[in-house]
């Protein structure tokens, strides 16, 4: 007869594995399995529907000769730099200002954080109305009598990508602020007091002591923002629909229109692999350095 203890030991050993198995299995199939499938499709001549005949690198060749793809890549460059840089700068500034023990901090924090609660589709649609020359800001200024005022970035193919940046910043800056505010609160007060006794000015304390102490926060924020930037899709679709023309296309919208609305599944798969490679180029070194740190204990 087995003792109750032996039963317990069995459950203790197997229960976690059993509970984790479904999610492990699902991740394996639906994430890594589909990545592999997509990778394979990118080496085929797939048109309307998937086709499994090996065709080598033709899709990648077609991709690199496609002007629209390069427009999308260039837009991603502009968007990523301005979006990540801008959101970090605005977020840190707001966090430092809020850190000065202002009255009503809770309310202000909520106001700034609130855009994060909206989906990008809502943000995009709202900004589409505000930036539309015939409906929003430009019309308002004209109605107020400033008839020479123009702000037509939304319908200007050279500037349309910047409207995506504006809406993205509005959405994400508050979130960055919240992350940094939490980080700032975590910095040991005694270090700051010591610096103050040594006669350091407040900007100097922030620049030399507090921000360096926030290195982990900076890294996680960068990670979050850069993957938002690379996979950005809904914001562009809602705000500009990729237009005018295809001037505000991003790789994600390019992939969607090739794979789903035109019969070019293979080309879409190739562009998706390029996006995956970009994300991997950012995430893998980060994970590597994090894991190595763990080993050193």
């Amino acid at each position, binding site marked *: 007869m087995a003792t109750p203890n032996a039963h317990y030991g069995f459950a203790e050993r197997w229960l976690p594995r059993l509970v984790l198995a479904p999610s492990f299995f699902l991740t394996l199939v639906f994430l890594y399995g589909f990545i592999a499938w997509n990778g394979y499709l990118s080496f085929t001549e797939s*048109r*309307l*529907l*998937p086709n499994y005949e090996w065709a080598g690198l033709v899709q990648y060749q077609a991709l690199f000769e496609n*002007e*629209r793809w390069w427009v999308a890549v260039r837009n991603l460059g502009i968007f990523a730099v301005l979006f990540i840089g801008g959101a970090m700068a605005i977020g840190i500034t707001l966090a430092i200002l809020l850190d000065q023990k202002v009255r009503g901090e809770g309310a202000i924090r909520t106001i700034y954080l609130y855009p994060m609660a909206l989906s990008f*589709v809502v943000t995009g649609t709202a900004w589409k109305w505000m930036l*539309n*020359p*015939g*409906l929003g800001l430009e019309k308002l200024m004209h109605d107020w009598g400033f008839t020479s005022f123009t702000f*037509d970035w*939304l*319908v200007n*193919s*050279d500037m349309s990508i910047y409207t995506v940046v504006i809406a993205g910043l509005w959405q994400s800056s508050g979130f960055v602020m919240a992350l940094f505010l939490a980080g700032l609160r975590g910095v040991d007060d005694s270090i700051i007091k010591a610096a103050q006794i040594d006669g350091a000015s407040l900007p100097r304390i922030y620049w030399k002591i507090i921000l360096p102490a926030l290195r982990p926060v900076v890294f996680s924020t960068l990670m979050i923002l850069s993957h938002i930037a690379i996979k950005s*899709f*809904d914001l562009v*679709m*809602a705000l*500009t*629909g990729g*237009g*005018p*023309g*295809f*001037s505000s296309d991003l790789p994600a919208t390019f992939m969607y*229109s*090739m794979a*789903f*609305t*035109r*019969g*070019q599944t293979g080309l879409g798969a190739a562009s998706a692999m390029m996006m995956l490679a970009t994300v991997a180029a950012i995430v893998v070194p980060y994970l590597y350095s994090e894991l190595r740190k763990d080993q050193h204990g």
Partner: protein
Amino acid sequence: MRNLKWGIVAASMSVAFAAQAAEVEVLHYWTSGGEAKAAAELKKMMEGKGNKWKDFAVAGGGGENAMTALKTRVVSGNPPAAAQIKGPSIQEWGDEGVLASIDSVAKKEGWDKVLPPVVSNVMKYKGQYVAAPVNVHRVNWLWVNPELLKKANAKVPTTWDEFFVTAAALQKAGIQPLAYGGQPWQDSTVFESVALGVGGVDFYKKAFVQLDPATLSGPTMVKVLETYKKLKPFTDKNAAGREWNLATSMVINGKAAMQFMGDWAKGEFLAAGKVPGKDFLCVAAPGTANAFTFNIDSFAMFKLKNKDAEKGQQDLASTLMSPAFQEIFNLNKGSIPARTDAPMAKFDECGQKSATDFKASAGKGSLVPSWAHGMAMKSATQGAVYDAVTQFWNNDGMSAKDAAAKLTQAAKTK
């Protein structure tokens, strides 16, 4: 938009599991006023034959969203009974081996006798009917609000020179000359009419049907592109991204005087209670009076696992081709029947003119497929050409010559 799309995909997947026999699920993209009415007629007739109609409507004028939804369903092995597919796309789907033959119905009802060959060829895959045509749209129309033209003392243009005189007169009178929707398929719809008017039928066929590089990059094409771009000052700034039916409503409401659009626009006028010939005019786009760019809507049938559903499919094919349906459907949709023996008496002057021109141009060889509406090129090529046209329209720094080079490059997309 996107949420809607996913919603539809999700909804269709959830119902799919509960699918029952003799239910006919039909994917279409007739969602705006006049079109939705036409779709409702089809539903009524199918239900009259004892079938259960399941509507699978996906919004978006050019049908791009509908094709996305369709692809999802076919890949998952659960296609709808029939889907609105047209032109060379029928062949593309045929190549994938997912279409079902309806040749038995077609033989029994003698479709070959009532359809012009230019139409029936498109409906067949390897000699067998796989799709049923419901209508013929003419794309090269110009819709005119005569009251505004009268106000500006301008006349209805028949050539491109006249068009620009009229447009300038309208603008001088403070009226917006052209209602325009800045979406890629609409850009190409207008561009196609310009090309036909400026370049003529032979040029059109060489450039867009045969995709001849010399024609695509030649001086006539440069002239076509220049003429097309000259339209831009006569449109408004907010045109970017506007849906076609909103542009049509600008003509209906007197906010703009003219619009280039296929005859599905007529449905919008009629739905607003306007009378053709009095409240609005339909004229051939400048310089294209003797030609006809056709866009044929058709339903392709998909192979289904459920054998009971095949009866529904055959009923559907037979209903779609019946003269009674073709008449009532096209009265609502603004197009003309695909079968040449359907009664035309109830049609208004736009419809009758269209039918006369259809038969006349078929005889003269000036009946040309509308490439902007998927009647001439494979979807990948068409998409690339869309990109070139839309880029030229939106980028004011691009010269017509560069654009012609881009077009030539785009036409090479396979």
